[in-house]
């Protein structure tokens, strides 16, 4: 057991290191000079040169790599080129949007997806089932930027229940911040809820045919009770797997929805930073994303290993 934990943790560290090398090399290959970007099309060559020197872009690649990794290990993420601010602070600020948004989206997808999946399974073969499964197909298939815009037109422009977007910092006005999470959360949750509903339905339908349900029915429970007591619990394992994957996807994949609802999330931070050639910021922010995603899958794996020892050979 301890050996498995240790091996899995080493893997986690190796993943991070490989990711750091890949990010650094890729970014170093990028054409485009950050200094020229800041100073624009009429700036003189020597103004650009002095800014380059100021930003420490002259040092050789390996020196910059080790100073970056070394800095991060000591908690120093560097200073952003274009924003002239501490990168760690910038990332923390964005995580305060992205992480709550991810959580809201996951809660919504569970709250919508699971009950509908259970309902569809219980009404298997009936019109409700068919209707719900068609809806789920559509939910997966609608491009989320389009769905986000339709949501905003309906709930923000026409009904005026919620803001069209934007973000008020949590400590300034908690409820305004929470309200701002609803529409983007819904836009993110739609495909995930659809997938969950399908998974839940399939899992329940499979489980219903199995022995323990028959036993339970033989003991006098109705099918509904049997499915509820035993089926749902057994179906939760595949659902948890999906949720683990979805978390990873949501943390990194919010950029499009952040754009539609002009939320200052981590995805947009990276996007602008790349276009502004703010290399230090891109590197560190990407590593943080990789860290979060790897950490979640590490935790999921370890939990599984505790629950179900058979999975240890699985390692992934």
């Amino acid at each position: 057991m301890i050996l498995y934990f240790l091996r899995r943790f080493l893997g986690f560290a190796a993943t991070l290191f490989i990711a750091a090398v890949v990010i650094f090399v890729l970014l170093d290959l990028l054409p485009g000079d950050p200094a020229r970007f800041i100073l624009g099309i009429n700036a003189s060559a020597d103004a650009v040169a002095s800014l380059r020197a100021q930003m420490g872009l002259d040092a050789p690649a390996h020196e910059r790599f080790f100073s970056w990794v070394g800095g991060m290990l000591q908690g120093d993420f560097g200073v952003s080129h274009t924003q002239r601010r501490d990168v760690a602070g910038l990332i923390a600020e964005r995580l305060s949007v992205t992480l709550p948004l991810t959580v809201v989206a996951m809660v919504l997808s569970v709250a919508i997806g699971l009950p509908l999946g259970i309902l569809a399974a219980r009404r298997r073969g009936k019109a409700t089932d068919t209707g719900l499964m068609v809806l789920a197909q559509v939910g997966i298939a609608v491009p989320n930027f389009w769905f986000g815009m339709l949501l905003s037109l309906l709930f923000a422009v026409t009904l005026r229940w919620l803001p069209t977007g934007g973000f008020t910092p949590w400590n300034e006005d908690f409820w305004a911040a929470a309200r701002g999470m609803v529409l983007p959360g819904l836009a993110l949750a739609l495909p995930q809820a659809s997938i969950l509903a399908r998974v839940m339905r399939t899992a329940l339908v499979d489980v219903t045919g199995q022995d323990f349900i028959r036993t339970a029915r033989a003991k006098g429970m109705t099918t509904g009770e049997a499915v509820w007591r035993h089926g749902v619990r057994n179906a939760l394992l595949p659902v948890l797997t999906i949720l683990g994957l979805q978390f990873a996807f949501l943390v990194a994949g919010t950029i499009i929805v952040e754009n539609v609802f002009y939320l200052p999330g981590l995805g947009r931070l990276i996007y602008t930073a790349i276009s502004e050639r703010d290399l230090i910021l891109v590197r560190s922010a990407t590593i943080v994303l990789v860290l979060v995603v790897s950490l979640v899958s590490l935790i999921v794996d370890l939990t599984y290993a505790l629950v179900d020892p058979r999975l240890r050979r699985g390692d992934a």
Partner: protein
Amino acid sequence: MIKTKSLGLTLTALLLATSAALAQSTEIRIGVALEPPALDPTAGAAEAIDVVVYQNVFEGLTRVDQNGAVQPGLAESWTVSDDGLTYTFKLHDGVTFHDGTSFDAEDVKFTFERILAEDSVNAQKALYAPIASVNVIDPLTVEFTLSRPDGMFLFNLGRGDAVIVAPESAENNANEPIGTGPFHFVQWDRGSRVVLEQNGAYWGEKPALTKATYRFIGDTATLTNALLAGDVDGTNNFAPEALAVFEGNPQFKVLVGSTEGETILGTNNAKEPFSDLRVRQAMAHALNRQEIIDGATYGYGVAIGTHFAPQHPYYLDLTETYPYDPEAAKALLAEAGYPDGFSATMKLPPVAYARLSGQIIASQFAEVGIKVELINTEWAQWLEDVLTNKDFDLTVISHVEPFDVGIYADPNYYFGYNNADLQALNEQLNATTDDGKRKELAQQIQTIISEDAVNGYLFELAQTGVWNAKLEGMWQNSPIEGVVLRDIRWVD
């Protein structure tokens, strides 16, 4: 057709009925497409910086008003010596920076020495190169000595690049701008908004607004929704394709005005086949300017025939130098040795007017046999390829600096245009201060570059603002980059 249209109308009508302005009477929320990378206008070229801080947080010795004229700013008056080489400015008394430190002639000296320093990162450093020295006469009097006369000097002092900063705070202006303006900086939530509040200690007339929030909304559909929902009160420049949503809506006013942005088909004159005048003339004949203006700006752009703003008193209408004539274009191409046309690439920066113009031009050029391959780039890449390395054939770009025809006199600029006569004329123009003479020289220059077809001259970008109908005092035109808040107020 009819069905589609009526669906759109019903939907719009529905939205009109529900949209109502709920904003407080002294606060404003402005939606802008681009977030500034930093907030120091003296250390970056991004227009987005000026949109937030120019004349709001920071002020210069002079300021440019909404007609493009130079007005007194922190300098209440000035005198110019007869040779045009010495300017003496009398500064306003009792002016303080937002951090409480006082403003005097030493700050002026500091500001310009910072701009001109060896390690200066001012994007427009070259504009201030004629300044030979800045002398403090007394705390409220400062004297500039120029090495040569400069007809644009007072205008250049009014630019965002020359706003007065204090030695105590200049270092941190990128994140925490400290100026002397009618609004002081409160906070910047990155990726989201900048908040300004009225400066209670402002030396001049107090503005009507007490608070201004800039929200950064890049997506046009989202900005449309935010305006309709009343989440923002206006925007200084809205995408022309969706203006129809607000036109005729009594809740909003649409302000269409001019900018200083000459949009050109940038051409690499130093490269074959564009080094051949006949090829450039052929391309000029192949351009259907009206179609480009309709397609790329929805008719809001103003046709230009040279690199000069149509609203400027010196402007010369040269749009008919090479009228749209595909046959003439083919003939010129044949004469230049390209009877079957040729292939070229066009690198396009990430702005809607450029991407759309590029597509339309490619289609028009195909008619005369010029096959254009479109290459879409992002800004950093465009700057490196086109501007720095001159590795391009064609591009579409808007030059938004006011009175920037001088770039044609620089043979190292990206057009690769080297004309000694024009360079001499430009030098003469720079050194001339008499208005009549300047106009004559400027028009000569306009004619030369138009006839030489250095670039394809397309249109002057329009400024298309959308504002809540109850707001007044916004600039209709944009003679200089910025959204000046001082005159904006709510009326009932």
